[in-house]
């Protein structure tokens, strides 16, 4: 048996081929999932349309308030629309690719996590590749629609530059990463306390709603919770605030990337810690 030296060319080749194999496997599993979903095309289209309409309800609430009162803490409807768009697209991307984390409680309760553990790949990777929830594309459509229309209006008035649209896409992707990190950390709690559905409302749903509005409107404890412990505000509010000229420096644009790296590392650590404590419920 030969031992590979760390960082040797062979090891690098090994890790890159494993990475490629993981990519191929992920693609294979996801495309199988998509094909399965597309067996019921009508159901997919109707549920997507319903969810777009349902999601637009949230924005209509904001729109009615802004129609009546003109601004939220100095943010007009287009500026809030951009923030809303970034948050929604990020949340939608997370829900498409990370939906299994949303229902992770049932894996623990029913003992289904055993079947994830017996695969020769990291459990988190296997879990995320199990399903792609295409119907959640409604969130992306809705966010892109509201955010796109708002951004175009701001570009026309000169409040936003064309190049900033690229930064908004980057902020959306960073938001998706941060939502995933928070969801992984919350799911990890299931290894210890089993039931996490109510906890998810606390760590994911409520912060996701809070993130649709400028964080400056909230009391300090809530604002800083959304910028530290549940750092969803670092992906949307911090960069959007700078892009709209409402304060901050270029560092506001670097924050989302740094937050993603740090949050994913912490979440991954929590996952492994939880996984090491896992006890099957199976017979």
């Amino acid at each position: 048996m030969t031992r590979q030296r760390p960082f040797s060319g062979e090891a690098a080749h090994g890790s890159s081929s494993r990475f490629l194999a993981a990519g191929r496997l992920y693609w294979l599993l996801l495309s199988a999932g998509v094909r399965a979903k597309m067996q019921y095309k009508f159901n997919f289209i109707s549920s997507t349309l319903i969810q777009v309409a349902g999601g637009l309800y949230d924005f209509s609430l904001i729109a009615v308030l802004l129609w009546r009162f003109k601004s939220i803490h100095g943010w007009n409807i287009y500026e809030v629309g951009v923030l809303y768009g970034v948050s929604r697209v990020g949340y939608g991307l997370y829900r498409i690719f990370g939906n299994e984390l949303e229902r992770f409680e049932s894996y623990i309760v029913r003992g289904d996590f055993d079947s994830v553990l017996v695969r020769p790949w990291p459990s988190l990777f296997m879990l995320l590749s199990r399903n792609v929830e295409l119907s959640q594309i409604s969130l992306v459509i809705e966010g892109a629609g509201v955010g796109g229309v708002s951004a175009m209006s701001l570009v026309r008035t000169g409040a936003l530059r064309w190049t900033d649209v690229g930064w908004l896409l980057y902020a959306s992707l960073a938001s998706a990463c941060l939502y995933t990190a928070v969801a992984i950390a919350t799911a990890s709690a299931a290894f210890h306390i089993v039931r996490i559905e109510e906890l998810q409302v606390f760590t994911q749903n409520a912060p996701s709603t809070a993130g649709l509005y400028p964080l400056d409107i909230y009391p300090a404890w809530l604002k800083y919770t959304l910028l530290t412990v549940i750092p969803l505000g670092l992906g949307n509010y911090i960069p959007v605030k700078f892009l709209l000229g409402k304060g901050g420096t270029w560092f506001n644009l670097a924050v989302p990337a740094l937050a993603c790296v740090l949050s994913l590392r912490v979440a991954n650590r929590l996952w492994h810690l939880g996984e090491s404590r896992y006890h099957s419920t199976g017979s």
Partner: protein
Amino acid sequence: MLLTAPLTNLSLKTRKYWVLMSRGFLQNLQYSASHLINAVASAVFGIIYIYLWKSVMPPTGFGDYSYPTMVYYVSFNETTMWFTQFGIRCHVRIRDAVRSGNIAQELVRPMSFFLYTVAYEYGSMIYGLIFRGIPVGLMLSTIGFYLPKNPATWFWTLLALLLGCYIGIVDLYLVGITAFWTTEIRTVYWTVAMLSLGLGGASMPIEVLPAPVYGLARWSPFACLSFNPARIYLELSGAELIWPAVVWSVVLTLFAHRATELARRKLEVQGG
């Protein structure tokens, strides 16, 4: 003896619905710990809306609502939504029973399917108010929670809430009944849920809506879920707001009975 017989008969008839209501309450009791965690999240939603209002409202207020009144409005609705809107599951149970074929057994019970469903759900909603709503109210009371000065207000509010809860349950009962025709109820459910939240005045008083929508919302059954009880409780309106709830309760009950009758004829049992 002859005189008391009808009364005994009536008490026997109502007793079974009382038992069902207790079951609905007790079945939820086992999840009370996790529901208390959820209450913290619900309180956060309340805080979000309170501070949102604080940031948009002009110093002079809006209509009947000053900023403190809005805090009370949001606190009250976040508390009572767990009684009149959130947590109603009868539509899901009916849909699942239709899909599995168990609906046949549900319908052969020697009692009204409608009253059976409503009684069970009512118990569950009373649980919702005590274990989910009131903890939210207690948490939000740190920001502000109004206590009416007039004792009669408590009575009218309770009546408005009891009727609001009934309307909320019957709305979703009707959603569930559509499963007899369509099996899938998602579209109807989402439509009713959005109307309940939007026109019900849960997160904002319906006077904020554009005039034509306000006119529609004001007389819709959805206003009886949150908006009317809140106005009575905050002593912004009197007991006259009970009447729309009474009328809608009667109309929806008749409609639900008719729909149940039609569904019974339409029944198609799935499965073997």
